[in-house]
């Protein structure tokens, strides 16, 4: 019996006349890698934004780890254990790689202004712990050597990894990655795949948007397909691949 971590039901999101998410429901089980595919404009990123509190859905239900997260603020969602990366990398460009990850620790730490001013022992210990953990995470994603570079100066592949490290710094139960392999060469994609396997085996559940079908087929335990804001298929990769509606959606999109 699979153990549900995240469950959404009947999610709707409209932008004016555009029905970006139309009655979307899905369940992500603890420990799996769950893939989300679909043509451009299908609503994948919109769903991410709903799941991370950046968009308020119009209707639906959303529970995570036994907690109701429907229409919750982004910082509440992060605290509950969902972290994400962005399709268009959104790092804090002028901060160093290390500082970026340290910001990710914010939600799990608590030193306030008074502690900062007094520099009492607890604050200093916490600060050191933040720094150590951030370094550890940079090494974990394989970019420990650029810890003190400003984020905006990093190579594209490094920026993608840094976003993952920053998200991991929030101690997520579910890590949601929006097209992490976009713009990567085959070699980098392979390394990224290894990293995602590593993250999963550390006990973090993964939600993944990706266009690289081959990557998705090998990596994901289950895949859902979105088209025009609707979920048109869901299942193990082999099922989804041979689903006529999916083939049509992709061919249709290719012809459009």
């Amino acid at each position, binding site marked *: 019996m699979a153990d549900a971590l995240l469950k959404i039901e009947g999610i709707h999101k409209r932008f004016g006349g555009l029905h970006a998410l139309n009655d979307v429901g899905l369940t992500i089980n603890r420990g799996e890698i769950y893939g989300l595919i679909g043509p451009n404009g299908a609503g994948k*990123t*919109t769903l991410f*934004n709903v799941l*991370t509190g*950046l*968009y308020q859905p119009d209707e639906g239900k959303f529970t995570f780890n036994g907690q109701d997260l429907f229409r919750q*603020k*982004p*910082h509440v969602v*992060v*605290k509950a254990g969902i*972290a*994400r990366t*962005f*399709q*268009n*990398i*959104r*790092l*804090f*460009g*002028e*901060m160093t790689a290390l*500082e970026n990850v*340290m*910001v*990710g*620790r*914010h*939600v799990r*730490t608590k*030193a*306030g*202004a008074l*502690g*900062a*001013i007094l*520099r009492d022992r607890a*604050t200093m210990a*916490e*600060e050191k712990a*933040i720094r150590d953990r951030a370094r550890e995470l940079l090494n974990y994603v394989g970019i420990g050597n650029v810890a003190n570079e*400003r*984020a*905006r*100066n*990093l190579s*594209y592949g490094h*920026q993608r990894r840094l976003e993952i490290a*920053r*998200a991991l710094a*929030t101690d997520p139960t579910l890590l949601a990655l*929006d097209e992490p392999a976009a713009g990567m060469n085959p070699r980098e994609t392979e390394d990224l795949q290894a990293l995602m396997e590593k993250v999963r085996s550390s006990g973090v559940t993964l939600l993944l948007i990706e266009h690289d079908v081959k990557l998705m087929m090998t990596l994901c335990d289950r895949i859902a397909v979105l088209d025009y804001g609707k979920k048109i298929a869901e299942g193990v990769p082999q099922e989804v691949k041979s689903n006529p509606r999916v083939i049509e959606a992709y061919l249709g999109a290719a012809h459009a």
Partner: protein
Amino acid sequence: MPQNQSKRMLAFALSGIVLAVLPFIVGSTLGNSWVRTLDFALLYIMLALGLNIVVGFAGLLDLGYIAFYAVGAYTFALLNSPHLSIFMPWWFILPLGAILAAFFGIMLGTPVLRLRGDYLAIVTLGFGEIIRIFMNNLNAPVNITNGPQGINMIKPIEVAGFSLGKPVELFGTTYNSVYIYYYLFLLLAVLTVIICHRLQHSRIGRAWVALREDDVAANAMGLNIRNIKLLAFAMGATFGGVAGGLFASFQGFVSPESFGLMESIMVLAMVVLGGMGNISGVILGAVLLTVTPELLRDIIGPLQMKAFGRMIVDPENARMLMFGLALIVVMLVRPEGLWPSKRRKAEFHDALDDGIPAADSQAADGLKG
């Protein structure tokens, strides 16, 4: 490492000595009015560093900052002058002014939480004016602030029965109160610097920078944007409140005139000219913008008399003209400020070869910048 440390100690010791004897050197060569200018420079350092938290660290453009200075000053004036015949000890009303200012900071911060850039600037500007207009008009039906006349005979700060407002005699020479205030202001300015430095290099300081760099990403990383913004407004306002209280006790007189838009812009100019976000830069900006106008005052009039035998341009106008020109030139040549933080400097210099997609490409994430 130990060598580096001893170098730093030496630098600290040297600047300590210079700062300690500065008023005597300035006073004996240029006169007491210049010591007074030094005092104001220290006061403006505190103000500018407070504003720097809001504008430089957190990236929130605040054009009404002087309102907090006003709150601190009026708190001190009302509670320690014959105007309401209330005389409370300074050690109580100075912190009270700071707390009230912080409260006003949150009052300003709450409604503007969702505003950015230009809109934020306009609302904060309005807030500053509202406070000033209140001070101007709260003399009827009940006279609280004494309106445009302001409040005078504010009692100076007293330490152990010893009033800082009275001249002191030392080794047969009488020293004006501007000397004693110098040391008080110096102490508090140094304290402000330490606090700002510590805040900058803390969990909170990082959150402010993250907010400045990308508030959506910051929010998505779990930062509570509302609290972080309000904390910036409140912390900044606190320094404004303390500086205001000191100003009131130092001047012995406050009126709404001291808290106009021009003052807000002046403090902002200190932050921007010196180098937003960089503490040393902001200090430099505050000192330059306090001292230069005074310097011009001393130079322009006499220079005209010497050259032409009469005043051709009104010295006050000429002074502001030259001052304005100097500001424009500096901002053209060094838009990042005279002494920017490394981060800020880089922002200005490699904005073009940007590795990170800016606002235009945020469409794919469906989030507007």
